[in-house]
């Protein structure tokens, strides 16, 4: 049994009398020591998915489906039990988490207080644990006695990661943890995340729009579009040889330092989720769209173990050459 088993998760928002289907039937699993990257652009539902797992959604959101974490379904768990799990077993690092540090307290004191709130231990013990945690994220112990404003952005984010690890959680969810950071700081932060993962005890879900981060740090990847997972499986398989047209389009559009290809945009924009297109949600923008696409494609498992939600998988191989041409993608908007 997996540590985390999300089954057919659906999240609908009620806003101004309209229903917005932000996450529509997402299923995924994660085990201890595994890392999963969830990739997508604005409006794909990846942040909503994260919040749904941790039950941090606002009041106008309705959640359906199951989120089984260590055997318990988080969706309808009583709040008291949920609070026990949050942070002790399951913690969250967000993009602006570094702003969550209270500017008038020393960073060390904040970590110590947090530890002692959840764990019955003396101040000295909590401090010792903080020192270990800081070492884990590459910060020297003397920084425990400094204030947040003395830290750089990267250091703050690393301190937050240390706090997220403070109680030894089984799983960390990191939602765009380094988007606000320099590339150098980002590298430092991920070096630490990698070390934590390599230690084998924590599962990590990384949410990002940056494919290269997932390529380097996650064994498995889920590509999301308009609230659904369109491709899911081993990162190296999927990024080397994507089999969903959207994933192909994403690779085409992604600028790489050592890539040589012409950058191609996907024409159009994400669909309006209060009124999603009938059938495949990527259909209107897809160069491979056919009549079959008026039916929603199910997520089916392929021979190499990955799952793809597309009717035209057999045609993808032939499509690959044409996919490199800008005209193929530009034509979609015109028809």
């Amino acid at each position, binding site marked *: 049994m997996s540590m985390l088993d999300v089954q057919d998760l659906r999240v609908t928002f009620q806003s101004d009398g309209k229903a917005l289907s932000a996450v529509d039937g997402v299923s995924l699993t994660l085990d201890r020591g595994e890392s999963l990257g969830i990739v997508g*652009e*604005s409006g794909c539902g990846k942040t909503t998915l994260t919040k749904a797992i941790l039950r941090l959604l606002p009041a106008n959101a309705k959640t359906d489906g199951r989120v089984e974490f260590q055997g318990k379904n988080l969706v309808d768990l009583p709040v008291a039990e949920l609070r026990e799990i949050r942070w002790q077993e399951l913690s969250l690092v967000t993009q602006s988490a570094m702003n969550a540090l209270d500017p008038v307290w020393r960073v060390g004191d904040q970590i110590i207080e947090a530890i002692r709130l959840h764990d019955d231990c003396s101040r000295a013990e909590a401090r010792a644990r903080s020192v270990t945690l800081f070492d884990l994220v*590459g*910060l*020297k112990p003397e*920084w425990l006695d400094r204030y947040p404003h003395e830290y750089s*952005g990267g*250091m703050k984010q690393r301190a937050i990661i240390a706090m997220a690890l403070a109680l030894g959680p089984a799983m960390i969810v990191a939602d765009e943890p380094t988007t606000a950071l*320099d*590339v*150098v700081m*980002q*590298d*430092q932060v*991920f*070096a630490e995340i990698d070390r934590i993962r390599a230690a084998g005890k924590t599962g990590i879900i990384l949410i990002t*729009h*940056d*494919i*290269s*981060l997932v*390529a*380097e740090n996650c064994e498995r990847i889920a590509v999301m579009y308009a609230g659904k997972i369109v491709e899911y499986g081993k990162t*190296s398989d999927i*990024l*080397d040889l994507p089999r969903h047209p959207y994933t192909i*389009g*994403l*690779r*085409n*559009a*992604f*600028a*790489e*330092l*050592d*890539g040589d290809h012409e*950058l*191609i*945009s*996907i024409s159009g*924009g994400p669909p309006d989720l209060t009124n999603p297109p009938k059938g495949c949600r990527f259909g209107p923008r897809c160069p491979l769209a056919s009549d079959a696409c008026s039916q929603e494609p199910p997520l089916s498992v392929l021979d190499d173990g990955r799952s793809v939600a597309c009717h035209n998988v057999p045609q993808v191989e032939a499509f690959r050459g044409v996919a490199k041409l800008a005209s193929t993608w530009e034509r979609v908007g015109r028809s």
Partner: protein
Amino acid sequence: MTNATTTPAPLLEVDDLCKSYAPKRGLIGSILARGAAPSNTLKNVSFDLGKGEILGVVGESGSGKSTLGFTILGLIEASSGSVRFDGNPLPRSARDLRAFRRSAQMIFQDPYQSLNPRFRIKDIVTEPLLVYGLIGKGEVAAAAEEVLDLVGLRPGKNYLERFPHELSGGQRQRVSIARAVVLKPRLLIADEPVSMLDVSIRAGILRLLRSLAASMEMSVVYISHDLSTVRYICDRVAVMYRGEIVEIGSTDQIIASPAHPYTKRLLSAVPRISFAEKRQRVAQHA
């Protein structure tokens, strides 16, 4: 000049440009003569920009790259050093600055705040023309349509009466570009134009900038922290660190064989998709 082939004069010559901000001292601070040292936002920045060239300025936050862009346009006053545009020094008087601004424009990072939310698209893109008296009120619609078509918002007619909040981020950025190029400037400063856009939209904007630079013979200073997009569109790259240019050269050369340690560190920190070699990480303990 004894060259057989004379190199054309550069469009922009920046020499020893410096900008420092005096620290704010409160009343008590002034009396006690205490205060921090002035910041060195720009330190002896020098480079040339040729006609029709796209120069990338790369650096992390705090490197001074945005300040450089604003200073070149005269939106921030330099502390010392010179900027020469087409051989002439940057004007100081308000009237001459205004004339200069016709030839040098800027686009910004945030598509959501670059456009006045109360203006219609047609008014946004034609405002520069009206300000300089180049067209009359009656010609606004036609001029707007033309420039919107130019930046890929086709048919331009459909966008005229809309407001910014009705457009997507990528479309808004195109409107910003339209506003910037409507005066047919010779210099465009692009300050992180795609960092707030979705990945699949960036390519279109970058290609638009590239094609406009070529077709309008416009020089572009492309400011960014993202080396990958810089590599895609820039001919040359200047790497900035703490207010100084530490390395400058052709894009291929800088990326293939960086000379300065900071450039090397920057390049080695960029994550890659390719699996050919596991990248050597920058290990850093604070």
